[in-house]
């Protein structure tokens, strides 16, 4: 039937043709310009603190913003806390790109990207009085300071844990070989729980650094092609043994709680949540520093402020609050990580907490490889390392 208003098929073709023209025009405009921002100076940071704006929007890891310390913050400053929990660093970067948030608790594999993309501003540490007594080995680190400019306030640090179900995994493992060595891991086929993130490649690299010394791995985030391929190969061999890859804490908690997973990489948050549920999980004991013999990947997180934060004053209040000795102690004990604030060690409920978590031992942290963003340039002058895009692509092919 022919419509009174013309042939519908013809109209459709016209619309399509119009769209194609529109796209070509856009593409043409685009190809001339390319935008890479980055770098900054301390002058860009806020110079003077003003009155709070009444609210603050945060992106955080699970367990970092809990009512126990966010409610008192709201009462004290009048800044209402809106919190969004993210499961991976990629998610955090994505959320920050929206410009809807004031700040983020970024790990080292996000900070460099956030700075390079221009999503965050330098931080004027003079406006954060509690910063003075932050552990000095957390200040001015490559993951929170760029070209001499401070981009954030340390939150705390810890190592990723090897966790297992004490009923199923005996004797207690002391090495990552239970998940990484194909022969040992085969014993737990279908029960291994692995973090669903390219950072798992670094975990394999930590294992190889200890066991395949001929590869010469120094830093598990600075891998040349040969080292990288070895790590990827190891994870491809691990893949058939993996029961579940977890991308959010809730999935891993349910996996261990219902017995589908018995051993794998975890964070303190899930470990304590499972203990609370009465699941017989265990991790390397505190006296071993929670570390299997190879060491472990870990994190040292940084609160960063968004470039065009809508509530900068409240964000500064938050950054100062989170490292307030009492609050930082509470945060550290709740999550199970080493505090960033020296004085927090006097405020912990468990008087030995800082000793157990090695908060005051810089040497201990040399065996913890904080998450970093892998870059092509790993400091030898040649661009021969695998960059983060390579890591993401490899992670896709590992999972198959």
């Amino acid at each position, binding site marked *: 039937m022919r419509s009174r*208003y013309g042939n519908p098929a013809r109209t459709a073709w016209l*619309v399509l043709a119009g*769209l194609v023209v*529109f*796209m070509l025009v*856009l*593409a043409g405009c*685009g*190809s*001339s*310009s*390319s*935008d*890479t*921002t*980055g770098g900054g100076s301390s002058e860009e940071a806020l110079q003077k603190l003003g009155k709070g704006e009444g609210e603050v929007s945060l992106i955080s890891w699970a367990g970092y913003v809990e009512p126990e310390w966010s409610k008192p913050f709201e009462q004290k400053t009048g800044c209402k806390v809106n919190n969004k929990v993210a499961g991976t660093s*990629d*998610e955090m*970067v*994505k959320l920050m*790109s929206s410009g809807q948030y004031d700040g983020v608790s970024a790990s080292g594999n996000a900070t*460099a*990207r956030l700075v*390079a*993309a*221009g999503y965050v501003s330098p931080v004027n540490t003079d406006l954060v009085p509690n910063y003075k007594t932050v552990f000095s080995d957390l200040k001015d680190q490559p993951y929170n300071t760029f070209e001499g400019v401070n981009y954030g306030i340390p939150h705390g640090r810890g190592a990723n844990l090897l966790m297992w179900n004490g009923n199923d995994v005996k004797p207690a493992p002391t090495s990552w070989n239970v998940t990484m060595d194909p022969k040992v891991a085969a014993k737990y086929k*279908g029960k291994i729980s692995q973090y669903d993130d390219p950072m798992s490649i670094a975990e394999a690299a930590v294992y190889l650094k200890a066991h395949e010394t001929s590869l010469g791995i120094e830093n598990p985030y600075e891998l040349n092609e040969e080292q990288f391929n070895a790590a990827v190969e190891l994870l491809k061999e691990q*893949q058939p043994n*993996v*029961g*579940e*890859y977890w*991308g959010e804490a809730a*999935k891993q908690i*349910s996996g261990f709680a*219902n*017995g*589908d997973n018995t051993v794998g990489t975890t964070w303190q948050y899930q470990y304590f949540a499972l203990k609370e549920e009465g699941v017989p999980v265990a991790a390397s004991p505190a006296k071993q520093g929670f570390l299997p013999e190879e060491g472990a990947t870990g994190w040292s997180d940084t609160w960063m402020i968004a470039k065009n934060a809508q509530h900068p004053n409240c964000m500064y209040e938050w950054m100062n609050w989170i490292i307030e000795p009492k609050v930082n102690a509470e945060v550290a004990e709740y999550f199970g990580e080493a505090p960033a604030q020296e004085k927090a060690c006097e405020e912990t409920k468990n008087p030995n907490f800082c000793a157990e978590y090695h908060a005051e031992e810089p040497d201990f942290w040399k065996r913890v490889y904080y998450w970093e*963003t892998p*870059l*092509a340039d790993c400091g030898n002058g040649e661009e021969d390392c695998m*960059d*983060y*895009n390579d890591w*993401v*692509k490899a*992670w*896709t*092919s590992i*999972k*198959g």
Partner: protein
Amino acid sequence: MASEAVLERRSVGHRLAGLFQGRRRLQVGALLAGPVGWLVIGYLGSLAILLITAFWSVDPLSGLVVKNYTLENFETLFNEPVYREIVWRTVRTALLVTITDAIIAFPIAFYMAKVASRRGKALLVVGILLPLWSSYLVKVYAWRTILSSDGMLHWLLNPIGLDTPGYGMTAVWLVFSYLWLPYMILPIYAGLERIPDSLISASEDLGASPFTTFRRVILPLSFPAVVAGSIFTFSLTLGDYITPRLVSNEQFIGNVIFNNIANNQPLAAALALVPIVVMIAYLLVARKLGAFEHV
């Protein structure tokens, strides 16, 4: 004063009414301007931007899009076998789920349309709509518990020597089939409702067996409705990434898009074009099968 203002307003209204008087094209145009504008700018426009982004590249450090024309993303998709495998896995699952749902949905829809009493029909419609009222995520997490190694399926099947399939492709297939079943039942039900009972009686009067009646009368008349339902089940499976993430380790197209969206939008955009192309092909086939003629 007030009456002047009213007069002024009336005259504007009158002038507008006069403008539209007898101009059908203008009437229709004004009526459709909003929705069509939204469709073209908000919907097709963003699709167009997606398509362009697929031809750009990314700055490896910042993850920002660099607007340089390149075919690199498509080369990655075609040359790396893992992406082909993922696309094929997604399409295969979508087809399997569609067929499963069609087989389950047809008898239910037929019972609802032709057999059930008025009351039974109302109860069934409510029963089918009810699961749609609860959150998608709640349902998938519930399936996680059901499928787990000491979950309900294990408990049910263990006595007869079987076991839960556990997490994996079977689980994905089961959960998808469950989730999208209402979207298949309802169009088929609507299609069957429209077949007059007299046609079925006539077929019987002419001596056809029930099977022949089904094959020669009911199925041809309701087939477009099945195809219409299949568009839902197929496209919903094609675009989902949460179910595979929660009940398996398998990567679907959506998972890879999700993994790349923060760091490599151009590659994610190129991948996002795959379901669009698959869907266009599917719709063309559906049109050939007459899905758009009656429903």
